Structures are given as structure tokens and as C-alpha cells.
């Protein structure tokens, strides 16, 4: 991918997601992730219904009309994006591959964060840490993150989520919000996520393709596991095979959901073919 093409792609994602984060998610994001302190912002005229205790008596006395203080919560949050770039993300049967969906999600979150004056950082991982961009503010920083997300070629294929979470807790000392974007097709990571969510605000965004639940009927096919490179012949025309596969996939899904609930991790399930606006909205609202 040459630079021109890359810039074009970054622009495209910027335009697509900036609008989303400005119009749809701005309020939701803002209220979903609150800062700690309250900072004074301005005084304005009293209107009926305002709390009496917010009246600024000094100003009221000076102007001879009631004024109230308006506070704004203190932002300065740190948002970390933990992005799975393992080979399994390079899969997709509908309009996008999972990696593209994840990139867009990251862009939405990043623009939402920057418009709320939050700092944003990035960790890309496969079965080891592939890249770490420390949290910073500013639009150019976001564009860099998007560029890296589009252009990054991982060195390894596997997935190790607990490694990534451990690295995250080690590197980021300040309490922060961590979005983990992955398909969560990995070995057990329950301990790591429990430890991480004790200190940080961990949000899991599970990105899946529909074919990962419902095998499409494409006859006999040699399926190659992108992560291990092993191939196996599967008769996808057999209803029994498809049913069995779905059962296993749903059982694993359930297991992960239970794990998220146990570790008090918020999560949203996003499918490459359904769009991510709805699940994100409901995630923000339910917090």
C-alpha cells in the first residue's frame, strides 16, 4: 500500500467515523465515561428548576438577579485501544473483514475521545505485543493511530489476549478506559481480564463474522486455519456438521459472555455485516 492510497484510506475512515462520533456518539460517549472531579465552567441565568445550592450568591448579589454556577466534569481520561491484529482478524465473508471493522471502531472511539479532550493510546497484539503507542491528545495523533491500524503487518499469527492485558496493566499505571477489540478466539484469559478490570475500566468489543457461527453451505471445502496454518476438509453441505459447529461456537460464545459478566467487564457484540452503531449505542447507554 503506497502512501497516497494510505492517506486516502485514512481520510475515508476519518470522514465516515468523525461524523458518527460527533453526531451520534458524542453525548453518549461523554456520559458513559465520566471523569473524576468537577471543574467550574461558567455562570448563567437562573431558570426554574435549577438547584438552589448551585446559585452563585456573589454574582447574584452583584447583578441583582439570580445566577447559577455551571460545572463541567474533569475529563483528561486515558483511553487505551487494545487491538487484536492476529491472522484470524483477516477473515470476513460479508462487506468487511474483521480487521476493517475493528479499524473503523477504533477510529470512532478515537474521534469521540479527542472531542471529549481525552488521551488515546494503542496496543496492537497478536500472540505477543506487536506495537505500543502511548496515550496522547490531538488529531494528528489519532490519524497516526488510524494509519498504523490500516497499514500494520503483524509479525505473528496467533492470539494471546492475557499477554496483551498483562502488558497493558504494566504499562498504563493511571486508571484508564481500555477497549479490547478482538474476536476472542484465544486460549483462556480470565485471570488477566479480572486483574485488568480491577484497576481499569475494561470494555470488550467482540467482533465476529457471521460465518463463524453459521457455516455457509459451500460444499466440501478445505478450510485453512489462518492462525495455525493447518488445513482440514469439511463437508459444509452436511447439516449435521453445520449444526455441530454452531453448537460449539455458541457454547464458546456463552462461556466468554459469562466470563465478561463475572469480571464486571462491559461488552458489546459486533458483527461485520450488521454495523456497529447499534451495539455501541446500547453499550454506552447501559453504562
Amino acid at each position: 500500500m503506497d502512501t497516497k492510497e494510505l492517506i486516502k484510506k485514512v481520510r475515508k475512515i476519518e470522514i465516515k467515523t468523525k461524523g458518527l462520533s460527533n453526531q451520534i456518539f458524542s453525548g453518549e460517549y461523554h456520559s458513559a465515561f465520566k471523569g473524576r472531579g468537577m471543574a467550574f465552567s461558567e455562570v448563567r441565568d437562573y431558570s426554574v428548576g435549577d438547584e438552589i445550592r448551585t446559585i452563585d450568591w456573589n454574582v447574584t448579589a452583584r447583578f441583582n438577579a439570580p445566577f447559577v454556577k455551571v460545572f463541567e466534569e474533569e475529563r483528561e481520561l486515558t483511553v487505551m485501544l487494545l487491538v487484536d491484529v492476529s491472522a484470524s482478524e483477516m477473515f470476513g465473508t460479508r462487506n468487511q473483514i474483521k480487521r476493517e471493522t475493528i479499524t473503523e471502531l477504533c477510529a470512532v472511539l478515537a474521534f469521540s475521545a479527542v472531542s471529549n479532550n481525552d488521551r488515546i493510546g494503542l496496543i496492537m497484539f497478536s500472540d505477543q505485543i506487536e506495537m505500543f503507542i502511548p496515550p496522547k491528545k490531538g488529531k494528528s495523533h489519532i490519524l497516526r493511530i488510524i494509519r498504523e491500524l490500516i497499514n500494520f503487518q503483524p509479525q505473528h499469527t496467533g492470539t494471546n489476549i492475557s499477554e496483551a492485558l498483562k502488558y497493558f496493566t504494566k504499562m498504563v499505571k493511571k486508571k484508564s478506559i481500555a477497549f479490547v477489540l478482538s474476536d476472542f478466539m484465544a486460549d483462556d484469559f480470565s485471570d488477566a481480564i479480572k486483574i485488568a478490570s480491577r484497576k481499569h475500566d475494561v470494555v470488550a468489543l467482540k467482533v465476529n463474522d457471521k460465518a463463524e457461527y453459521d457455516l455457509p453451505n459451500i460444499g466440501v471445502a478445505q478450510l485453512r486455519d489462518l492462525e495455525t496454518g493447518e488445513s482440514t476438509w469439511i463437508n459444509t453441505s452436511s447439516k449435521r456438521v453445520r449444526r455441530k459447529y454452531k453448537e460449539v461456537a455458541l457454547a464458546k460464545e456463552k462461556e466468554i459472555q459469562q466470563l465478561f459478566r463475572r469480571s464486571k467487564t462491559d461488552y458489546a457484540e459486533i458483527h461485520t455485516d450488521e454495523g456497529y452503531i447499534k451495539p455501541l449505542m446500547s453499550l454506552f447507554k447501559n453504562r
Partner: protein
Amino acid sequence: MWSNLVDIWPFGFEYVRKEAFWFFLVIPLIIAWYIYQQRSNFTRINFSSNRNFAKKKVNWIALMRHVNLALFVIGVSYFILALARPHSPVDIDDYKKKNIEGIDIVISMDVSQSMLAEDLKPNRLEAAKEVAKSFIEDRPTDRIGLVLYEAEAYTQSPMTTDHEILLEQLEKVQTGMVTPGTAIGLGLITAVNRLRESDAKSKVIILMTDGLNNSGDIQPMEAAEIAKEMGVTVYTIGVGQDGAAPMPVFGGLNMNVPVEIDEELLTDIAIMTGGKYYRAKNKTELKHIYEDIDQLEKSKVKVLDFKVNPPEKYYGFLVFGLLLIVGYKVIDHTLLKHIP
């Protein structure tokens, strides 16, 4: 042809075009191509994870694919075998029997009353028939005819390779069918006449008699002359023991009748036509004589043994190969239909 279709076990056959076996080098190529395809990622579909598939000890599809390839390879092999023109060794014998140009033989047999003499067991005629029968059976490739004579001569069977009919006709032979007497000349000339149209390379008459020439318009020597002209070899056999032979007469009585054979005449005929005169005093001798003639004429058959061009056996191979390849294609496009 239907039996040819069933006969497809490839090891019982001989192959005319062994060069075609070089085509078997195609098979390692096919297998190499199969392995290459199997290995190459081009034919695979990338999938995020195979974790959720049940682990199986035997992947039946992979196995079936191998089996299907085996079908294809065997099908191709049968095509190659068909190219190599298979035929069974048994067929060659059969073919020779039917198609090799043998020699033409006419057995000219005396069936006069005197043939009932019992110096040969059970009598001369039966002994002659029996020996002639085994002679005919031993020469399956020759056209053999049968001429009988008493005072007149007639053809019992024209020359034929259908020896079953010939043996049937031989079985029917009995004495006293026509005017009694012994017309050696007529017997010989009738036999010669039967060979007139023959274009065989070797023409043979076996002339058998047990008496003197005592009737007929044609002198034996004249007939021999004609036979010589036409390139017919005449073997002459005199049947009967020395002295007298017992002869059945009315009422089951036997009467000793002197044996008169014109040996001089028979020898002359034989010498003139390049044959040989034999004297059969009993059945064993007669048998030996026939064996001798058989041997003498056999060497000529070998000369005639031209290049064998036996019937092809490839139908079965071709059809079977085709079936296998079609079967392979059908399975590949139905049961094992895969992307890409």
C-alpha cells in the same frame, strides 16, 4: 464382445504395443499435481479458526479424495493398457485355429465290402474311421474333406474347417452305399477334383484302399498324373494284413478271404506325386501312418504360419477406464464438490 468387457484383469494378457507403457509416466505426474494442489494454499479457504470443528481421527473427505484420485489413476491406467493392445494368450491359439492358412487335405477312403474284414479291430472300416477321426482332431487349422469310393466315388464332405460337421459325416460312413467294387482311380480323381479350386500352398490326398482297382473309367495312374499336374501330394495307404483276412458273411460266419493289395500301383502313385506309400497291417500301424503324415505335413504348416494378428481385447479396458474416469468426475462434482 460382452465377454471381452468383463475380462479386464490386466495380468493375464499379452500386450502388443509395449511402448504404450511409457504413458504410465503420466501417473506420477498426476499424483505430483494432486499433491501440489493439496499443498498449495490456492485451493484452500482461509478461515479464522478451526477450533470449533470437532476433532476427528479420520477425515473421511480427505480419505475419499485419495480414493477418488485412485479411481482416476486406475482409469487412466486402463486407458493406457487399452492403448497397449491387450490380448490373451488363449486367444492366439483360438485365432490360429480359425485364421491361419492351413493346408488342404482330402481323405479318400475305400468303403467297399472288403473293408468289413476283421484283420484290423473291430474291422477295417471302423479302425480307419477311428484313426481318421483322431487325425482330424489333431489338425484343427486345416481344411479337410472326405471322399468315399466303391465302384463309384462320391464326396461325403467337401473340404471344410468346420471339423465338427466333418466328424459327424465321418461317423456316418458305412459300406455298400453304391455299386460294389473298388475304383481307386475314381476315388483319387474325385479327391483331386475337390482340390481343384483350392489355393492352399500344400494340397494332400490320403488315399486308402484294401484291394485292387477293379472298376471305374479312370485308371489310377491317369488320376495320379492329374494330381501331379495340380501339385497334389498323394499318400497312399494299403490296409490289410498279409495273407488272408477273416471276413463276415451271412449268418455270423467268418470266411477267410485273401488280401490283395496292388502295392506296386500305390507306390507308383505315391512316388509320382511326391508322397509316400504305407502299408497298414493292423490298427496300430495305421495310427502310426497317420501320425507320420501328420508330422510330414506339420512342418509345412509352420512355413505358412504368417504374422499373427489376433483379435483385440481392449474394449473392456477402454470401457472400464472410461467408467472409472467418468465415475471420478461424477464423484468430484457431486459428493466431493468443492470450492474452488
